[in-house]
């Protein structure tokens, strides 16, 4: 019996060998830049396509790919087609690590572009930087992507949560002077960084309640009751879309209707109103989602989705309708096409024969401009993305911007207006370099 069992152990080990050997890939040339051939550039990304973080975010992979497919179909960059391979990490950091290593070690991608999530992506930043792989435009507003000394290959893209918090805090201070304010925030880096920005502006004596929520726990009645009991006139939401919706529905039940100010992360009107209708339906009632978020204040850093007079919106809508008509044209699609454009622009500036270092240099040189309402902060000393945003209000289910765009930094610097006009999209949608 025992002998037979041990023979089996040996057989098992041999089987492991055979299977593992079967999945090993062949040799590769050492000198060429990984992921770059005469007519292609291959890049990779990890995105939750399934699981709790998938709603909305799962659209980013197909949307970025649609933009790259459009560029490739129209001549590509320096004659090279851009191929994006996005993999499903289900928002599980262990998956993110394995899949990112697969993209770098096995698929030999040129760069990682637009990988999504703070808890997931923080676990691969060290690996990517020690492997000298450009790690561009992490889809998260964590301030942690901006560490050019420790992580020279990592770049953020969207305005970080502190910058956004400062802009919203500045708005609350100026427009709701003397009103009581409450915070409803996600209890992690996202919520904490956001509050750091808010607290620089909102008068602390007026902050009557701070209520955290844990993502995953959908019962927020206790927090909303506490905020309602504090009789706050304004509630600032540092929350993802699902919790913007949950806060609204729970406060409705209590007959509590404060003015809502929300971080851009949780304020996309299409996503939030869809969620509102879904949640209400599950609870057995029907609501009109867009009516419930009427008047919601947020900060936007990209043009409005329905403003077709804007050259960028027109370009992205055209690509959307041609390549991914089955995906709703919402903030996530706009977001992904925008970072895809920024990558295309950086690649064009990296020259005829792009290298990994050349790509990083092109970004650090600065001067990139695209669909954003405000400029990037990229330089040798800063790998932070957009410098700010523009206050916007939801009116009739649409995001309507107000005033001029605002810019600021992570520190104590003031929030100042940015008056330069947004550049026009190139006629064919492809950056010249």
């Amino acid at each position, binding site marked *: 019996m025992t002998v037979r069992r041990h023979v089996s152990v040996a057989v098992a080990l041999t089987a492991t060998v055979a299977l593992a050997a079967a999945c*090993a890939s062949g040799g590769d040339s050492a000198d060429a830049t990984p992921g770059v051939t005469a007519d292609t550039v291959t890049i990779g990304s990890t995105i939750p396509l399934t699981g709790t973080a998938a709603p909305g975010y799962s659209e980013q992979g197909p949307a970025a790919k649609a933009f790259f497919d459009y560029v490739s179909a129209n001549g590509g960059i320096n004659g090279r087609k851009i191929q994006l391979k996005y993999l499903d990490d289900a928002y599980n950091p262990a998956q993110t690590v394995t899949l990112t290593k697969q993209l770098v070690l096995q698929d030999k991608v040129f760069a990682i572009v637009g990988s999504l999530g703070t808890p997931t992506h923080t676990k691969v930043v060290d690996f990517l930087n020690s492997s000298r792989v450009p790690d561009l435009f992490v889809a998260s507003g964590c301030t942690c992507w901006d560490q050019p000394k420790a992580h020279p290959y990592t770049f953020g893209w969207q305005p970080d949560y502190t910058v956004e918090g400062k802009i919203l805090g500045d708005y609350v201070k100026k427009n709701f002077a003397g009103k009581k304010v409450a915070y409803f925030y996600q*209890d992690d880096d996202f919520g904490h960084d956001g509050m750091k920005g808010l607290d620089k502006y909102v008068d602390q004596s007026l902050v009557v309640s701070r209520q955290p929520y844990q*993502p995953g726990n959908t019962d927020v009645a206790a927090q909303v009751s506490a905020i309602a009991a504090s009789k706050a006139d304004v509630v600032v939401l540092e929350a993802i879309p699902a919790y913007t919706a949950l806060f609204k529905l729970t406060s409705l039940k209590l007959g509590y209707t404060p003015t809502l100010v929300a971080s851009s992360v949780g304020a996309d009107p299409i996503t939030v109103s869809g969620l509102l209708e879904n949640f209400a339906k599950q609870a057995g009632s029907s609501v009109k989602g867009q009516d419930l978020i009427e008047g919601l204040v947020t900060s936007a850093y990209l043009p409005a989705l329905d403003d077709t007079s804007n050259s960028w919106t027109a370009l992205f809508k055209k690509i959307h309708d041609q390549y991914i008509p089955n995906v709703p044209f919402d903030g996530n699609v706009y977001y992904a096409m925008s970072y895809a454009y920024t990558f295309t622009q950086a690649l064009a500036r990296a020259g005829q024969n792009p290298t990994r270092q050349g790509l990083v240099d092109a970004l650090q040189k600065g001067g990139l401009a695209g669909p954003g309402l405000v400029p990037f902060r990229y330089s040798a000393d800063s790998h932070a993305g957009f410098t700010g945003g523009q206050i916007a209000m939801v009116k009739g289910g649409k995001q309507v911007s107000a005033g001029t765009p605002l810019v600021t930094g992570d520190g104590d610097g003031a929030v100042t207006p940015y008056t330069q006009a947004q550049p026009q999209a190139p006629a064919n949608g492809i950056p010249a370099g």
Partner: protein
Amino acid sequence: MTALASAAPLRLWRQSTLVRHLTWSVLGLVVLYFVSTSLDAFANLQLAQICYTAIATAGLTVLSGLSGQISLGHGAFVAVGAYTTAVLLEHLQWPLALVLLGSVVVGGALGCLVGVAAARLRGPYLAGATLALAVGLPSLADYHGLRDLLGGANGLIVTSEPPPLSLGESFPLERWQAWICGLCLVITLFLLSNLASSRLGRDMRLVREDEQAAALSGVHVARTQIVTFGISAAFAGLAGGLFAIVNSLAAPGAFTLALSLSLLTAAVVGGLGSLAGAVYGAVIVTLLPNWTADLAQRANLPRAIYANIPLVLYGLVLIVVIVVFPGGIQSGVRKLGALLRPARSGRPQENRQET
């Protein structure tokens, strides 16, 4: 003369399980060495993942297959091992071997504690209790008092040591990690196979078959169950420590219920109660999702279908394996061995007649 000389080692081989186990262990290490040196970096990462999954599965298969207790929550012990390693390595900077030993001890201690409850619970009640453990324990990391130590929802980043310089400057990290995990797997299989053929192993089987009969024949049923739970959790803890080093993290999002269920899947698909089965099972649950995802990617399907295809394929393969080998892959290997044996059995019998 020659027959006599060769008979002595053969007799030793037959009589001493320790010698047999040691020989197979050394052979296993040699095989692992050649495998890892012939593979590229990513395949070495997968090899390391197979090894730590096999360690956790081996512990689980001893628990369920030998002592008849079920655990749907072994992922929780893996999580505890991972956090122990992360904390010892990052905050205290202990040497690696000591850190892994720490994970074994903490995992085992928690296992004994859970084992005390488990010894009082049967069937669905035990399944429910361990399920609750898998769901609840990882969220402890977000508890306010522990947040500074365990990193909250974002978890901890584990910076694993680079390979020793004596191996050369460009020695791949993944191969080094595969070596560490491989060594731990061989040690685990060695210890557990000795355990299975020891008195405790016999007691476990007795308890599994009939608790009353076991108690009548002088076996302390509850103690056997608690010890088994502790041992099983200790190896899950070791697997967790290796998990933290290989994936450079310990974070609540990594220890989902799916992890616990995939360990159970590995044990069942491989063949419940068999250590070799634990290895087969680990190979399948580690490599299959990767292959199915690659297949789905190549097929160029619409997103809604594409995203779910890997899960569907994974499920399909598991169903097929269970239908074809109801007793797990190991039962298939045994059947195959039995088919081959009559053809070979002629020669050993002749030898026996000669001596």
